[in-house]
């Protein structure tokens, strides 16, 4: 099983007394697309934030691309550079233009020459179809455009894994499609993706596996077709009946 890129074993996490993750086990293979769904507060976001250690897990082990996540800061920075992340609130840097947002990390983290970084950024912006907005500042763009820029920014680091934390939840309905389109074409390009989302249409289209989480546990993990056709767990059934 050499193509395992993420291995989570018995991961536990607490916020104070509250246990957010309870013995989570999850393996992700290369080029696999996984959609994580579940009611709010079920620990979905925390789960994927643990993968690039924006949150620390307190028990268990997480191995990303052969490196175990530990206290070692240099190691974490190395892993973070390989794991792209897209947030619900976009989190673009408002004081930099879209192009600078995209080139900042390649230049200063990967030490890429500025010219090359800009070419790369323009290329990625072209893929998400906002190349004409490159000189603008985030505040001047619509939500959908901002989120696509954020995807381009993450891709500029040429990551091996992309994490999406409810990328469409803060968007107006008519902008959701353009962001999902960008994600679909990224998935078709063969990226390893873990997506927290409520967009079941997207899950049906691209996911290899769907995970249902509740109260910090992975309740159900099935290939996409089975997941929607015959969910085993009662909570999954209830959730699906409400959301579909």
């Amino acid at each position, binding site marked *: 099983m050499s193509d395992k890129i993420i291995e989570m074993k018995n991961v536990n996490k607490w916020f104070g007394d509250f246990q957010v993750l309870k013995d989570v086990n999850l393996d992700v293979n290369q080029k696999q697309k996984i959609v994580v769904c579940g009611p709010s507060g079920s620990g979905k976001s925390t789960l994927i934030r643990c993968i*690039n250690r*924006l949150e620390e897990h307190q028990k268990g082990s997480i191995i990303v691309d052969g490196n175990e996540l530990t206290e070692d800061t240099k190691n974490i920075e190395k892993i*973070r550079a390989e*794991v792209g992340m897209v*947030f619900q609130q976009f989190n673009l840097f*408002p004081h930099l233009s879209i192009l600078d947002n995209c080139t900042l990390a390649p230049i200063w983290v*990967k030490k890429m020459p500025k010219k090359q970084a800009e070419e790369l950024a323009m290329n990625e912006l072209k893929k998400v179809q906002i190349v004409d907005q490159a000189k603008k500042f985030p505040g001047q763009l619509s939500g959908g455009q901002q989120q696509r820029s954020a995807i381009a920014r993450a891709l500029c680091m040429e990551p091996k894994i992309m994490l999406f934390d409810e990328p469409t939840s803060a968007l107006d309905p008519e902008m959701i499609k353009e962001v999902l389109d960008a994600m679909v074409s990224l998935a078709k390009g063969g990226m390893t993706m873990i997506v927290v989302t409520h967009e079941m249409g997207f899950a049906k289209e691209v996911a290899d596996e769907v995970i249902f989480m509740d109260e910090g546990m992975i309740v159900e993990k099935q290939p996409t077709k089975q997941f929607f056709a015959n969910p085993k767990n009662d909570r999954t059934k209830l959730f699906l009946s409400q959301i579909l």
Partner: protein
Amino acid sequence: MSKINFLKPDKQNLSTYLYTGSFLFFIAVFDVFLSSFFKINITSFLPNFVSFLLPLILGIIGLHLVRIEFSGIKNLDLLNKNINTSTFNAVLTLLIIFIIIKSIPPIMSWFILDANIAGDTKEACTGSGACWTYIKIWLRRFVYGMYPNDLQWRINISFILLIALAFVGYFPSEKLRKFLTLYYVVIYPIIAFVLIYYLISGGAFGLEWVETGAWGGLSLTFIVSFFCLIFCFPVGMFLALGRRSELPTLRYISVGFIEFWRGVPLITVLFMSSVMFPMFLPEDFFMDKLVRVIIAISLFEAAYVAEVIRGGLQALPRGQYDAAKSLGMGYWKMHIFVILPQALKLVIPGIANTFLALVKDTPLIFVVGLLEIVGMLNLAKTNPKWLGFAMEGYVFAAIIFWIICYAMSRYSYNLEIKYKTER
């Protein structure tokens, strides 16, 4: 024409009310104007008390008459909406107008009409107004302190250079903008120190040595505030970062430092720096008094700057930290490129506030025997040949300080606009 009711002005007889009202209002203002500028009381035939209150009464009636809602005349509606909404507001408006008119003649006469500027002794001041001769004669001392007259060009040149270099912040291209902080925080202070050290202090390149005890006046105000400003800023920045650090030792040291300096009065700090501090130093170690004072004020103000900057850091959404981290940036890269540029931009008004306070605190250095502009004034006013002109001196200092502070506040405001981006 409908019936005219003077208690309830309405729109039907608009022009009648308008003309009567304006006429009464102008009579009121004219009466005050005459009595203030020409000491003529046109209502002297009335009893004293009535004569005194008449302008106010006339004004109130006048403003009452023009208080017509939706008159259709734009300026009148504007007036009624903003300053003539009720009788109470009308009274306030009238009082303010009267006070302004009343106060113009005495101020004018003190500042200009009855003031003296000719001559060069105290005896030249014969008028009842200000004696600007005093300021004129002492101007060199007020500006340069005891700095030798024939060497003062050195101060002038270094200040001109420093001001020119400070304005570099206005012209960088998009490309160089990110080095601006580096320039102001590191490069500029070094240039400034070298300039002041070699040009004003002298002692090298054939320039005569002038000890810091001779420095003084406005130029000392500038030197002290200038160095304190540029030193306290980076120190404050590191303290702010330290206070938010995850390392407990660093955090407690920062908190302790900030709370210590914020808890003691500046005057004590200055006194300590000059009297107590040298006692702890080895015998042969000498540190100039001016340097000690600058360090003391810088550390004192750094504590305040730290808290202002911390406010900016806390105002940033957590997502900015997350995004920077998720791109693989370490602590310093994240702060230099993402966090600090945004946080500092947010706190420009707060920092300007602290800096203005700092400039106005500099006169306190008199407690250690350094005489900047207010110190020189105090010295000059006790000169036996020039007794009794404290007022002129303080007015002069107030004007100078106001100009400095206003310029600084405009500069900060411009920076604010320049670096404004939408969120």
